[in-house]
């Protein structure tokens, strides 16, 4: 049943008894044309675009737990495309353009809200770096503008621009088309739309092995629900990608870290945009529910634990309180962690692999949510055509051998 105000009103008359399941709960078939491992936003989106744009409908998405339960459902939902390198700009801008129409495309309100993402400069070095971004983005036709501290405060009135701060705000780079979206809705929207086109989403189905023929090509996956045959496997398992790829003897250049985030108790709107400060490690927005959504850092050591150290949180909140001194009396409601998979150059891998029929989409580090539609779209292309889309052609595994890195972190001189 289509989602619309009219249908909502109609269903209200019968106490909403007739809404169907948003996705099916099929048992796995013996074989599929393609299998996606991981039902997060990127994986479900990949299945959606495979079905919609490439006509591959005999496909399945396998999920160890519940769909959307990984980083898709535990991130701070920031969307932007004002990256430095052209490769990144291409990928994230492709994504922003898909975000702009995603609710109607999926017939699911993903609440994409282009509220503006403002990145603060605190040092002379920051100014140099951000202006470089502004110029680089302008050349690619991507909006990003430089603001004075006063203009930054006008855009976000609770911002502290006092010159007496420990690290005063010297300016900001603003991408007005950046913003936020409702994370769960993205997973659910893709799942519903993909399922409607025949994609089998199989939850509580953990992949235990990848079977290959003597030539090395994949032939299927061993799962907790038995063997499922396929000639194409797309691995989209975020923090656990190394584990899954290990089943096909592919060693990944990834390290996994816990990354934390937190929300405040809900309050009436005070925060009209997203503010990020890489230098003092803080970023914040306000959800539609009224919670301040705050991103914290990663632990210093690798781990698969979906929680992190207290000192990471306190360090984030001290930065938040410096930037927004009026939130100091507000309270932290919930603090959680997710596992982020980080590559040596902090850019993702969206690529074919040395194993025939095996494709991988991983390494999003701390910033994968924003890329969900774009990443899924070009990864579907890569799987369907057995060659990358021009937009993800540079995001190979090979680049760590050839040296053609896409190093956003080094360019921004930040750890995350």
């Amino acid at each position, binding site marked *: 049943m289509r989602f619309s105000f009219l249908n909502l009103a109609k269903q209200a008359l019968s106490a909403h008894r007739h809404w169907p399941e948003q996705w099916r709960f099929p048992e796995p078939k013996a074989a599929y044309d393609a299998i996606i491992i991981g039902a997060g936003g990127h994986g479900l989106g990949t299945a959606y675009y495979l079905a919609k744009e490439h006509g591959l409908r005999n496909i399945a998405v396998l999920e160890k737990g519940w769909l959307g339960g990984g980083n898709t459902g535990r991130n701070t939902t920031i969307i932007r495309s004002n990256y430095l390198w052209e490769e990144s700009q291409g990928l994230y801008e492709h994504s922003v353009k898909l975000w702009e129409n995603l609710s109607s495309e999926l017939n699911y309100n993903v*609440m994409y809200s282009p509220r503006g993402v403002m990145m603060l400069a*605190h040092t002379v070095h920051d100014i140099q770096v951000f202006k470089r971004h502004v110029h*680089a983005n302008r050349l690619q036709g991507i909006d990003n503008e430089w603001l004075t501290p006063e203009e930054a405060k006008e855009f976000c009135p609770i911002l502290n621009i006092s010159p007496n701060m420990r690290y005063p705000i010297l300016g900001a780079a603003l991408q007005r088309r950046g913003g936020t979206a409702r994370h769960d809705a993205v997973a659910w929207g893709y799942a519903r739309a993909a399922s409607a086109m025949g994609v089998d989403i199989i939850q509580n189905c953990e992949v235990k092995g990848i079977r290959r023929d003597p030539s090395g090509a994949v032939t299927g996956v061993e799962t907790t629900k038995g063997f499922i045959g396929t000639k194409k496997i797309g691995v989209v398992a975020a923090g656990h990608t190394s584990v899954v790829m290990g089943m096909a003897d592919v060693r990944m250049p990834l390290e996994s870290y816990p990354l934390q985030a937190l929300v405040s108790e809900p309050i009436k709107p005070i925060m009209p945009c997203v503010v990020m400060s890489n230098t003092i490690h803080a970023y914040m927005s306000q959800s539609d529910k009224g919670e301040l959504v705050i991103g914290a850092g990663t632990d210093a050591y690798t781990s698969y634990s979906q929680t992190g150290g207290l000192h990471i949180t306190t360090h984030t909140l001290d930065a938040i309180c410096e930037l927004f001194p009026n939130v100091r009396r507000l309270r932290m409601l919930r603090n959680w962690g997710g596992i982020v998979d980080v590559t040596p150059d902090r850019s993702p891998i969206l690529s074919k692999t040395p194993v025939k029929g095996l494709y991988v989409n991983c390494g999003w580090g701390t910033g994968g949510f924003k890329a969900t539609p774009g990443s899924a779209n070009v990864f579907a292309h890569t799987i369907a055509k057995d060659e990358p889309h021009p937009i993800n052609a540079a995001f190979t595994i090979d680049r760590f051998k050839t040296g053609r890195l896409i190093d956003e972190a080094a360019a921004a001189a930040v750890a995350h």
Partner: protein
Amino acid sequence: MSLTLRAKRSGRVDRTKPLSFTFDGKTYRGFEGDTLASALLANGVHLMGRSFKYHRPRGVITAGSDEPNALVSVGSGARHTPNLRAPQVELYDGLVAKSQNAWPSLSFDVGAINNFLSPLFVAGFYYKTFMWPNVAWKKLYEPIIRRAAGLGTASSEPDPDHYSTRFAHCDVLVVGSGPAGLSAALSAARTGARVILCDEQAEFGGSLLSELHATVDGKPAAQWVEEAVAELKALAGTVTLLPRTQAFGYFAQNFLGLVERVTDHLATPDPKLPRDRLWQVRAKEVVIAAGAHERPMVFPDNDRPGIMLADAARTYANRYGVRPGGRAVVATAHDSAYQAALDLKAAGVSIELIADLRKEANGPLPMAARAAGIRVETGMAITGSTGRLRVNAALVSKLGTDGEEAIPCDLILMCGGWTPSVHLFSQSRGKLVFDDARQVFIPGESAQAERSAGACKGSETLAQAFEDGFAAGLDAAAKAGCAQGKATQVKLAGVLDAHGGFLGAVPHPHDAGRVKAFVDYQNDVTAKDIKLATREGMRSIEHVKRYTTTGMATDQGKLSNMNALAIAAEALGKPIPAVGLTTFRQPYTPISFGAMANHSRGDLFDPVRKTATHAWAEAQGAVFEDVGLWKRAWYFPHAGEDMHAAVLRECKTVRDSAGVFDASTLGKIEVVGPDAAEFMNILYTNPWSKLEVGRCRYGLMLNEAGFVMDDGVVGRIAEDRFHVTTTTGGAPRVLNHMEDYLQTEFPNLKVALTSTTEQYSVVAVQGPNARKIIAPLIDGIDISNEAMPHMSVRLGKICGVPTRLFRMSFTGELGFEVNVPADYGQAIWEAIWAEAQKYEACAYGTETMHVLRAEKGYIIVGQETDGTVTPNDLGLDWAIGKAKPDFVGKRSLTRPDLVKADRKQLVGLLTVEPQTVLEEGAQITLIGNPPAGTSALGHVTSSYQSAVLGRSFALAIVSAGRARMGETLYVPMPDGPIAVTVTDPVFYDKEGAKLHV
């Protein structure tokens, strides 16, 4: 004042100490010992809040921190604090409280229109609409939703209070001071263990504070508590008592976070006191005695003001001496509500009926209630309520019948049973197990050094709580290595045991699709919302939670989660454990951002590192910039000069005469040991073996990927000793990098690394007159050009102080860097300055340093490099020891992409219009007006006006730049392109003659 709603018994409230407070502008009276909730109830006020979505009128429902409804704002102006739970707000004279999320008033709230639209506003409705047109979400729908959502408001002013933190260690941390917690603390403390006892409430004692009849060892419960606390207090050397302190988080290695509310309960706190204090406790052993949460019953219209949890009402009556109503109906599935009925009856409340959902209720408490003449009906469900801003009747019906009886009342007490508070246990990563018989999750196997005691463990009786507590305290102390203690027992009397419980929605004869039976009060999640979610495919409890928002309110599901789980399980036809639990996350209850940030604010936000000459520079009017943690003198403006003028003058002075510069912030690492040279060979690209003692070399450090990571001049002090300098910002990173390799890759090398950054003050004297300036001050070093050539280092004295004197230059002029022990830094600086003035030299800052080095084409790591630049890109191949078998990054340098012809290379740029100064970071293109999507050839890395050149100049990284000498390229700017000519990056003294004078 009227005492009509006060019970005869005053409880723990001091009726001789009246207090005045306001709620929504109206003045009320209360007493010392009251909470805001108890005082409002005593004044007949039940309506304390509005719900989140439907704006339904709501009364206080609990007597504790799990309150979902009665959220208020307290204080005004900068101290306005939203979302406080009324049962947790301690009353003081002059307290100002306001209701939230209601306009124009709490009793008449326009937002309640949502309640009439509620047939539309079901779970997840917003995912199904508001999609057309695309832009309308942000422009139209979202602003409306945002205004309606949220609870209280944030103050617009900065918080004037301060916060604090303490780190503590103990043998045994006891969380909770009810019967189990107090017993645990006592038995542990008696062994001599260092004990910390914390409780979120103002008073220790927990449920014992509401006991009227129980005696412990023959004493009234309250007296036993008093004596227990006195005994603990007497052990002040080993026992720390923390009331008003919430253990909010259980982290790895028995590390717990606690927040102590220090002043919120005081009318006029000592301004020296912090508002909250964060305790970061490392405990050898932990006893969790967190109690249990009473569950509401999920029945239609179970949310009117005047409907509350039975034991909460008992607490208000017994502990605060308040009659929360005149005529009460009790709806229960657990014996404990009978005790509440009996105690309220004793307080003067008429108990109209106890409707027990269970078929039978023959425990001692139900029998006692019947004996007291209370009407008790079993097999009877509460099926609704009536009333507007206060309940005026309860609807009850016999199970299996359609008939409904309305019983007039102004109070409905409900008890669905008790949910053990397993939050901290679960946070500690212990596994929960489902007790099928009692339908509760209880702690299973421990993952850390902890144990639970009392109700949070699932123990149901007071006797069991004491027994658990004493045993847990002894066990914890013993495991912490303290003395073996003696087993303790207490004799209880006057307590009747209570059992029972019910999960899920109460059956009722109404159309389930039309009524609202609330599961999560604050977020307005009803039983039918949960069923709708399961119908729509939300089969995991996480999906149910996220789709309906149940358990996501400020109580984080303390009251609602088990009922929601049971309703979902029933709808899915699965056993409860198969549907799963959502994760228990910290904090247990919300804690202030201020407590988390504590001292880290203002200048204490990050340590401020200042050099020895900071005060001198300040006195000279220097402007400072932040570089890492350091404050560095940026430039020294004379009267009337702006930065531009000051820097031009400083640059000219250095080149004409000399300048003095504080280079102390550069990182310094002493690399010492028999294998020091070998270690340097591995960490830096350059060859070090043949560097003579007394000579220096420019060192280049790469990361494994082959990209430039750091640089600096390195002096060989002795065969086995190098004085390494790093960039200012890179110092910690370089030391970590070195330690990483030394400890993990080359542990065989005998090398010790010591950071000496702060041991030395470094005064750079640069310019043609540099030698003349320092000559009169130097002892024991021949600083002539012949005896001490460029790039050498000597040990000697300056002004009698030992120095490592470097001859080196970052300006292109004759230069020395005087390293002296930091304590002498200012004195030596002033001595040099006195000499410098004889030559009309200047003091200069980082900006002039940047310009002068750029004129020479010297790079700054982080400005000319960005983590993607190789030595060859920078024209620094000469710094690579070609004969060395290996160094970090060597293998990467031969990778295909690192040897490509079109790599971006360091070049100089001169604007065709000589006075135009390019913007750093600007992009460089082949044509002046490139269409969007054009690839840049590179970017401007450094750009300045030069005094010596009499024009602007820039450094840039440009694709195949070295092959483009003389080519015209463009820097496209918003107001038009700027034409530039590609040049060699060295603009001044290309031959280096000035370095060797």
